[in-house]
């Protein structure tokens, strides 16, 4: 019997409607825990398959959204399992809240590509599609893997890492003592561990609070500004940020060569990344900056390519144009107030993208840029992967589970259980925290035991 999974089934665009899909044996009962109809006592479990129900999603007396719920029992559903789809109307935020409520009600955040995988394994997708299914799974995972870590705030990443290190040390200590009881004593240790567990629990609670404030993940359309040095990238960023005065969060660059700002453009959230100017260079530090810029370009949702109109195109531009392949791009011909040597036509001949003339110094062309981005977004040309939201929820769930495991350790200590019981739940917490920062357990424990404690004959 498989467990019940949930995720957002539509791309997270601000179109107003988003679908939360639940699939698995508990799908209907999970939905019933949250669904309220106008008619008192109406239960989805009593309803026929393939019916639509109007109502509200209510969690702890709080109405999260007005919804339409679609009920499809297996095997006649996309995944072949009992499936409930909740159509939310309250925008991106409501979709997120509903998904979180569904997770709290007993579903598990779906792994990337998991609906498709289940559909296939349940024989709902034609065998000839196997290749495509595998591609979806592997592509979605690739993205999730990149995004889950890269979107984590630096401070969150460090905090999780520190908590893990602390836990691992304690597990290794317990295990060393169990492995070599004649060398290492656990006399009085439970009391000490209780203090540590409480401390770490508090840290996780703080992280969870920050997740609720939306400060844990960087969300929004990943917009990367590319260009040669001195093309005017930084002034463009400053301008966008300054003019809007709508900095959501200011993120200190994790590197000195990529600066990141979160801005809101007419209601659309953008993660703006200002990168190092791309050029062939022998300077080591600059090389690293260029490499980072290229990395970011690879998974950008949108690239703003800033070109200095007063200087001729060269091999560095050719290099940048390589990076634009397959990425949604806007070409910005900057310094249009100066003597220009490049024309818009010259650029569009080489890159398939719209061109705008701007002048960062004269502050012209910015409105057009904003309009263009907004249009692209609302016409669905750019969107950001829905994996971002599910990643956020996966990470929150992992934090909650880690917290729960530590609470179990506390219980075990309170109940005077022998020490070997502590390490079981400590390890679970360690493992869950690892999933947030993309680290598996592997040989960590054995390495820590041998590295930190002198055991053995």
């Amino acid at each position, binding site marked *: 019997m498989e467990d019940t999974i949930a995720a957002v089934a539509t791309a997270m665009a601000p179109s107003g409607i988003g679908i939360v899909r639940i699939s698995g044996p508990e799908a209907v009962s999970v939905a019933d825990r949250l669904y309220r109809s106008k008619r008192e006592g109406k239960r989805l479990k009593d309803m026929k398959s393939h019916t639509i129900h109007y109502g509200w999603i209510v969690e702890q007396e709080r109405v999260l959204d007005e919804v339409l719920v679609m009920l499809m029992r297996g095997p006649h559903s996309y995944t072949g399992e009992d499936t409930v789809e909740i159509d939310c109307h309250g925008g991106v935020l409501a979709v997120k809240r509903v998904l979180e409520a569904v997770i709290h009600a007993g579903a598990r955040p779906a792994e990337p590509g998991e609906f498709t995988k289940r559909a296939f394994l349940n024989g709902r997708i034609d065998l000839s599609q196997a290749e495509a299914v595998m591609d979806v799974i592997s592509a979605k995972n690739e993205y999730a893997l990149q995004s889950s870590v890269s979107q984590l705030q630096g401070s969150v990443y460090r905090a999780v890492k520190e908590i893990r290190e602390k836990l691992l040390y304690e597990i290794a200590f317990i295990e060393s003592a*169990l492995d070599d009881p004649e060398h290492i004593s656990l006399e009085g240790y439970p009391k000490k561990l209780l203090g540590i567990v409480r401390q770490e629990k508090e840290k996780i609670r703080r992280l969870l609070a920050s997740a609720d404030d939306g400060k844990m993940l960087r969300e929004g359309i990943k917009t990367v500004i590319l260009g040669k040095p001195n093309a005017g990238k930084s002034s463009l960023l400053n301008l966008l940020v300054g003019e809007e005065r709508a900095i959501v969060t200011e993120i200190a660059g994790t590197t000195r060569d990529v600066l990141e700002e979160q801005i809101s453009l007419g209601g659309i959230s953008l993660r703006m990344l200002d990168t190092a100017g791309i050029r062939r260079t022998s300077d080591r530090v600059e090389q690293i900056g260029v490499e980072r810029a290229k990395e970011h370009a690879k998974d950008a949702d949108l690239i703003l390519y800033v070109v200095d109109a007063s200087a001729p195109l060269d091999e560095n531009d050719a290099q940048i144009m390589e990076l634009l392949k397959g990425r949604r791009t806007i070409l910005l011909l900057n310094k249009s107030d100066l003597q220009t040597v490049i024309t818009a036509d010259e650029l569009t001949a080489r890159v398939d993208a719209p061109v705008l003339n701007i002048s960062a110094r004269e502050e012209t062309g910015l409105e057009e840029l904003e309009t263009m981005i907004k249009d692209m977004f609302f016409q669905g040309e750019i969107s950001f992967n829905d994996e971002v939201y599910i990643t956020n929820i996966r990470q929150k769930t992992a934090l909650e589970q880690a917290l729960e495991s530590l609470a179990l350790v506390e219980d075990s200590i309170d109940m005077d259980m022998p020490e070997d019981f502590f390490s079981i739940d400590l390890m679970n917490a360690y493992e869950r925290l690892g999933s947030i920062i993309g680290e598996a357990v592997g040989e960590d424990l054995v390495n820590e035991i041998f590295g930190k404690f002198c055991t053995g004959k």
Partner: protein
Amino acid sequence: MGMIVETYEIVVIGAGHAGCEAALAAARLGLETILFTVSVDSIAMMPCNPNIGGTSKGHLVREIDALGGEMGKNIDRTFIQSKMLNKSKGPAVHSLRAQADKKAYSNQMRKVLEHTDHLTIKQAEVAELIVEEGMLKGVKTVSGAVYTCRAAVLCTGVYLNARCIYGDVSMETGPNGLQAATHLTDSLRANGVEMMRFKTGTPARVDKRSIDFSKMEEQFGDERVVPFSFSTDPESVQIDQVSCWLTYTNERTHEIIRENLDRSPLYSGMIEGTGPRYCPSIEDKVVKFADKNRHQVFLEPEGLDTNEMYVGGMSSSLPEDVQEAMYHSVPGLEHAKIVRNAYAIEYDCINPRQLNATLEFKAIHGLFSGGQFNGSSGYEEAAAQGLVAGINAAQQVLGKELLVLDRSEAYIGVLIDDLVTKENREPYRMMTSRAEYRLLLRQDNADLRLRRYGYQAGLISEEEYQALLQKERQIEEEVRRVEHTYVGSSAQVNQVLEQYGSTPLSGGSSLAELIRRPELNYDSLADIDPKRPKLPDSVTEQVNINIKYDGYIRRQQKQVEQFKKMEKKKIPENLDYDQVQSLRIEAKQKLKEYRPMNIGQASRISGVSPADVSVLLVYLENFRGGTGEGK
């Protein structure tokens, strides 16, 4: 007269702890078996520590016994001190350890081998494997004699191209000056086997008469000894025991070592093999744990008929004169006479990822291996693998299903799975922390977990099997009775509770609920449980544990269910990973290297991500024709 050519069904190479179990298992299953050793006098020799068991290793011995192996019975007959370690901790980490009379242990095992039907012992060095088209056909000795067979088990221990080293002295011998085996490595390489070089070490032995025990702490055995074997009568092991002794190194010891580090073959680069981190030499400890100003040293008797004492905790490969000075700096050892020097030993072993979980070589049908040859360390780890390899070599010849224990069933399963799916860079030692389901894999329930497999293989008798079934029934019935027996808050009940410092009852409670209280257990409630049936201790022990740790046990059982799902999804042997387009390149490489037997094993290979596993699942569904079965 021509060359000798003889025919057997099973050939076992090496008569250490792995080889003995392998040969016994095969012969007991009725197959004509020949056991080769470079020296008949060194059968089941213990060239390092004089004990069997210890944390997690005690579990292995219990499991070997449950499956029908010999090690547990053998130590029960030849131990001179016994201790249950970690008794104050949870039942999952209780571990038996017994000091052995080394000579007696070896002799007793030899006696058993010599009295086993279908088993031939032969002193000869096997130099060559005869392999035709990927099938093992026989072996050839140094003298050219040929022994054809249907399956062989390699248990060469530390003897392949063995080299013993201390200071600048290096000798091409096995342990205790025994002859090394110098030919087989070449033959293995010629058959495409990937070899590695590992290292281990042993401390000095000193003369008991030269030790001042008044400066040491005496370490006694347990008052009531628990046997290793489920078949041993507990009364038969209540013997007079000998003591071990505890002392410590000090700053002066460490100074001597530090001053002479440049003369250590480890630091001069003379030793190339990889040593185990969990069993560091004293020089390693001093360097790595520089902040510790003392290390424990255990003096353990090597037997009843010898004065030799093993200096546990001080293995070394420093030169002889430094060893003298270093040992003499330890309280009680000031005038110790060293009988045998400490030394390091290097040897050839295989990279075990070339094996299936059945311990058969993936590329050579009919060739199995076990023990240190597979990159493990320890007598118990060796015996466990030897037993499995021996059983499987025999099962294959008999055309029966091979034995694979998974990680949720046995430490043996964890051991073998780790060996064949993880990257091993040092001799592998068992540890309880390696067993993720250790609450279920206790030493006290090894029989309940594994006797059935031993019975199916044919190593456990009908009588022993019936006894197991009865034990299972008794446990089940008694657990049910205790869960459903209620006591009120009578004066008698509360008096008993107070006696154990437990809160008195104000209403009714089941006996099971009371057992779950930390300060109470099954035994302490005898007086308020008048209908309690008379049951053997081995049954009530299980009842107590099952009830007391019920919540934890159930949580692990749930995890095991998840785990089993993945283990059940088999991967066809001939799967061409290059055909699976969406797998990442790294995953493809690793999967091709390890060729896992099932999805669970694939997921444990480092470099294979959960996404790769999903992709593989989808691919396999397609491969099988997508009938939607086996979910």
